[in-house]
């Protein structure tokens, strides 16, 4: 028993990810934490998307279930779980069954290597980013099989569209990622890394987010990735596979109830996953803003207070809304619920001020805040853009993003190795040229 406690406690001082420390207990804990956190994030994202989109579109969004519709996602999830499970008669039953699980597995597995902090990752793989890209590309298998197994025209077209789209944009995405990875190798030993944690540490060591590295190369790479990741997750304006007005619902037309909700879950966690990649590669991962410029204990303290203050601010919003609630007795429960939610947020905020918690959690907070920014972008796109047509989508992918990515890759490589290129290529060539001229004349 003592050994067990020792085993569990030993990790806390080890300053490693559970995977690296080889601590199975904490690995399991982290897996559960990530799973629960992801589910909560998806639920929150669902509510936020509906509310934000609603307010962009001059309407209120969900208002009835819970105060300001806070319980709406839960009600929806319950509804989906209780719905009748329909499998089309002509469908390929086994494949129809498996397809959503492939998508969900692919979307969830990538979080094994997502670094929420220097030690807050389930594990740190040597091939981290490759693993993320590879596993997230498996989702396309689920989509293709879902469309095929439905044995119907619209899902099949949706599946073919989606697979073509995802495979195409993976290429551009990969090129952008490679250009960021090359930036990690700019150190004394010239060794880059694919490890997610290593990439963030490289940004810390180079005192610069890769977004601003080699201006404007980093921004261009980030731009390519930011476009490709929207296409990769099949979201507006690249939501052709599920283009409602054309293909009814694309590859998941025939899906309903629980299995449909799995696709939904997978879509949102894939969004979070690709945003995590973008945050890790270009936006400094868990690093707080200005880790080098504004360093020192005072700044550290100031920045570490922000998580708690954010929650207190949200709690304040809740209390303000509570005061503004109609005073009618019918709204009593809703008012109480909102006040309770505010109290919960305030409690979380206060807990985040405890020094021991503050130190451990601020990484996670900054990472999540950056990812949340991307989530807002996704919603914003959806509210703003019309949908691309398929050939235009392919044109953007292959004729714009891919050449740009290739050129970017070469330029980044040359610029990153500019001293070597100068010494080994340009100068010898120039000398040879001069020599040639001298021989001729």
């Amino acid at each position: 028993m003592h050994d067990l406690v020792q085993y569990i406690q030993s990790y806390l001082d080890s300053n490693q990810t559970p995977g690296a420390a080889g601590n199975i207990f904490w690995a399991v804990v982290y897996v559960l934490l990530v799973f629960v956190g992801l589910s909560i994030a998806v639920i929150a994202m669902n509510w936020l998307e509906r509310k934000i989109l609603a307010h962009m579109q001059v309407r209120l969004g969900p208002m009835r279930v819970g105060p300001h519709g806070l319980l709406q996602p839960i009600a929806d999830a319950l509804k989906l779980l209780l719905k009748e499970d329909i499998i089309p008669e002509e469908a390929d039953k086994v494949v129809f069954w498996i397809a959503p699980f492939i998508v969900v597995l692919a979307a969830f597995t990538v979080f094994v290597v997502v670094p929420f902090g220097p030690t807050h990752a389930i594990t740190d793989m040597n091939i981290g980013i490759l693993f993320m890209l590879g596993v997230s590309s498996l989702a396309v298998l689920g989509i293709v099989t879902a469309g095929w197994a439905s044995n119907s025209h619209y899902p099949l077209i949706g599946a073919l569209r989606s697979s073509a789209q995802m495979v195409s944009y993976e290429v551009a995405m990969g090129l952008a990622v490679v250009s960021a990875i090359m930036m990690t190798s700019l150190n004394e030993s010239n060794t880059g890394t694919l490890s997610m944690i290593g990439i963030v540490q490289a940004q810390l060591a180079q005192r610069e987010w890769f977004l601003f590295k080699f201006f404007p190369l980093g921004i261009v790479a980030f731009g390519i990735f930011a476009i490709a990741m929207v296409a990769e997750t099949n979201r507006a304006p690249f939501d052709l596979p599920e283009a409602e007005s054309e293909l009814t619902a694309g590859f998941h037309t025939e899906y309903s109830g629980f299995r449909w909700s799995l696709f939904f879950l997978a879509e949102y966690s894939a969004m979070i996953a690709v945003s995590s990649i973008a945050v890790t590669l270009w936006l400094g991962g868990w690093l707080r803003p200005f880790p080098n410029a504004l360093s020192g204990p005072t700044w550290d303290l100031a920045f570490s207070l922000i998580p708690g203050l954010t929650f207190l601010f949200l709690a304040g919003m809740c209390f303000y809304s509570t005061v503004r609630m109609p005073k009618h007795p019918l709204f009593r429960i809703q008012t109480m619920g909102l006040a309770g939610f505010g109290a919960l947020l305030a409690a979380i905020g206060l807990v985040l001020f405890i020094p021991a918690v503050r130190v451990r959690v601020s990484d996670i907070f900054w990472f999540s805040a950056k990812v949340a920014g991307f989530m807002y972008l996704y919603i914003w796109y959806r509210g703003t853009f019309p949908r691309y047509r398929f050939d235009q989508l392919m044109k953007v992918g292959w004729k714009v993003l891919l050449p740009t990515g290739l050129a970017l890759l070469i330029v980044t490589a040359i610029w990153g190795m500019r001293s070597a290129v100068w010494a080994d290529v340009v100068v010898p060539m120039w000398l040879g040229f001069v020599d040639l001229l001298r021989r001729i004349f």
Partner: protein
Amino acid sequence: MTDPNTLSPLDLDTPDKTFLDSNELVINMGPQHPATHGVLRVILRLDGEKVLGLECVIGYLHRGVEKIAENRTYTMFNPYVDRMDYVAAVSNGLGYCEAVEKLLSVEAPPRAQYIRVILTELNRIASHQLWLGTHALDIGAITPLFYTFRDREEILKIFEKYCGARLTTHAFRIGGLQYEAYDGFEQDVKNFVSFVKPKIDEYEELLTTNRIWLERTKGVGVISGKDCVALGVTGPVLRASGVKWDIRKAQPYANYKNFEFDVPTGQNGDTYDRYIVRMIEMRQSLRIIEQAVEGIPEGPIMAKVPKVMKPPVGEIYHSIEAPKGELGYFIVSDGSTQPYRIRVRPPSFVNLQALDLMCRGQLVADVIAVIGTLDIVLGEVDR
């Protein structure tokens, strides 16, 4: 392989090959499809995603309006026409009332004419707003829908205040109007005009220069003016193809000749031009409304019309410029209280014929855009 353009979409006698080779994928779009604007069924013959041809199957909303007319008196039939193009019910009523008035040789008094024009133009704006919202939604922009519906609501409020109904208004009577304009009608309309002007800019801000919107609409569903004329296509679709034909100018009815307004035309005849034409039309309608509200005369609102209408034996064709195109009524009277035959020339039905021509060689996604841009209302197509 035979030339795909000569085949009917339903011509399935071609060998049943898979769509890799001879590329015949026949897809049934509708009648329950979110983007066919009601219950239109389109049978698409596809080469991958390219449309080889299509055929519209209509009649799912057929109610026999024309047949019903033969068993109703002229007055009784008036509300029925509202149910054809239900998003532009006022225009339908105007066309019918004017046709019967022509048959009876009466003319509505000037005050009635002015109020008719105001309401009709308001309805034109409402119809275009609904079109814009749904069309943008089809192309994937979901936000304009809510903006247009928010503003259309103001028009419907005016309708409701005027006659009690919001959609199928039955606003006009043969010979004039049933109701005098309510107190503050003019002020309401003026308020609306000043309210909606910046809103139209808002729609344009979201779409007109949006890159994706341009890519989705430019060069899509092109139809030449010649083809339009040959197919009888009218309205904004015709004007966007460069033919300056607006019945309000060409064969002025009501008192449109008293108002100053421009007839916008496009050059390319593509979806984008149709969009622009309709946006300009909305502004022009506002111009007409402004003039009409300023110049609205005092006087009676009902001409002298017999209680029991017995038009002389004869026939009449009268057409007006409805939001969607030329809306014509052909009425044959046998001298009795009931029309012998009424035939409606609905713009949606005629415009829908151009769908096949406009979609050939385009992609599936363009079919959606083209159906949207034709601005059809299935109630009017099927009647």
